[in-house]
């Protein structure tokens, strides 16, 4: 499932980050920030307008990601298959 579609408050594990286009700097940055396979993440909150951006917790750090950015991250949500 895409991280942008994860339910609020759910714990998830990153599977992969995919490039939206070749040499995608946003995907590269997400990987640098720790969005790599096996890393636990959590969708903490959604922004007030249109549910954008998302507040994502990874490790002890919180990032605001736009939906389009979070959509690059493929996750496995605990409990869901």
């Amino acid at each position, binding site marked *: 499932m895409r991280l942008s579609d994860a339910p609020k408050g759910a714990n998830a594990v990153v599977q992969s980050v995919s490039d*939206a286009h070749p040499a995608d*700097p*946003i995907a*590269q*940055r*997400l*990987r*640098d*920030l*720790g969005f*790599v*396979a096996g*890393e636990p993440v959590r969708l*903490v*909150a*959604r*922004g*007030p*307008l*249109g549910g*954008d*951006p998302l*507040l994502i*917790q*990874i*490790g*002890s*750090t*919180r*990032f*605001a*990601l*736009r939906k*389009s*950015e979070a959509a690059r991250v493929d996750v496995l949500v605990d409990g869901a298959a």
Partner: protein
Amino acid sequence: MRIALVGNPNCGKTALFNQLTGGRQKVANYAGVTVERKEGRFVAPSGRTLHILDLPGAYSFEATSPDEAITRDVCHGRYPGEAAPDLIVCVADATNLRLHLRFVLEVRRLGRPVVLALNMMDAARRRGIAIDVAELSRRLGVPVVETVAVKRGGAKALIARIDESVPDIVPAAIDQASVEQLHTEVRSILAATVTTSRDTVAIDDAIDRWALHPVFGLAILATLMFFIFQAVFSWAEPIMDAIESGIAALGVFVTGFLPADSALHSLLNDGLFAGLGAVLVFLPQILILFLFILVLEESGYLPRAAFLLDRMMFRVGLTGRAFIPLLSSFACAIPGIMATRSIQDPRDRLTTILVAPLMTCSARLPVYTLLIAAFIPSRSVWGVFNLQGIVLFTLYFAGIFSALGVAFVMKRLRKDKSEHALIMELPSYRLPNVRDIGLGLWERAMIFLKRVGGIILALTVLLWFLSSFPGPPDGATQPAIDYSIAGRLGRMLEVIFAPIGFNWQICIALVPGLAAREVAVAALGTVYAMSGSDDSVASQLGPLIANQWSLATALSLLAWYVFAPQCMSTLAVIRRETNSWRNVAVAAGYLFGLAYLASLATYQIARALS
């Protein structure tokens, strides 16, 4: 020896730099505070002089914004006119090692001597994070020291270590490690050296539940902003009154010793006391505004506000990241424009730079306050709000809304559909330190007083000179200023500005306002003192213009200052940051156009209604 401080954003590099060098560079609780390289010196206990370089924070050497590029270039020895540093002090936030260690590994790969400073050890201990420093140092192959950059003596271990010897260079184990490999290494290092009880701080979670709530979050933000404007207006009033009468008394006392018709008497009374006094009164307001800005900056709330507003700002062609630069512009557009370096996307950055002058800078506050106090009755509205406060709030918002409008038009003109990044870190909340805030305010007060004693004084004296010479011919019937250079210039400009209701006195005041906006107030003080028949004008500018101007003129001047195109330093910094005269012309042109149109509309409508 040259030492560079390198690390992730917001890990305390600048706090450490200040601690080492005794400097006062800006420290605040969000990523992207430092946006240029800053140099300082410090004499180590051994007597050696060390050159310390503070650099912008970076998540990675794959730079995505101009500030990160500076750090990358300095570290690689590619920065123009500068060799690579002899020693890199890599700073990492001990409470955030999962993120920060990866960059440490990247820095280690540079193949230069590195010392790791584990900063924020106080916070780490409070959170129950235990770090095996010896093991960490062994695994990384670099010396590791603990620091608390915000505590006196908190950098002792670091000073001792860098004074001792330059550490050996660790040969990089894997030269071309992939991101995944680096992260794997970080995980294994963490597993062996760090024990934590939980990932987050309970208080952060609790505050964020409210502060980022879709409804309450926005309500809290709006209330906070409104409260600040009310406070700036109402808290400052008693102090301002005291300063005003103090200056008036001093003026009477000092000029009492001078012959009443001498040039010196006129210079002191009309130039110094009427001019400078008029500006000095605004010190309390400016300090109250900065009190709020400093507390907000240190609290960690600002990135939250950016989170709340990102969607809206994105719609109009900005980004949530623009929030902090734009908020800084309320103090002054110059640091605001510099702060845009932390915006990754060059188009977002340019838009932010171009609209930053629309944020009402603190130098415009004197103009607003003077006019509001003179023309808007101090009435309470719905029992809680003051009408004057509401007008001030409206003026600030007029600036904000026009910024949104201008950004939107630019987005349309650009027709650009590509993706712009946000990716913004939200730091832990932190209680501001009273001493730091006090020092920050003291600094702002000094900056303001230096401006008053420097450029504003110089311009005021110059204006007094231009308004006094040439003197009136024999048998002149008008006040002397009518025959002076300034008087003539004012009359010439009046032709252009008459349709928007500006008289020639205002026109004169606008000219020195090009160099510093507050001067406009000082200049009005001087001009009216010069043209007044008696000498009692000093610091009585408000009541005087209330008598002489129509309400329409006052409102028109307020509208003019919402856009206030006339600030040379802002245009200069736009030129420097965008490296283009074209952008300067665009900014100056659209600001002037909007100012003129807004004033024209305000003046004509107000006149039609009255």
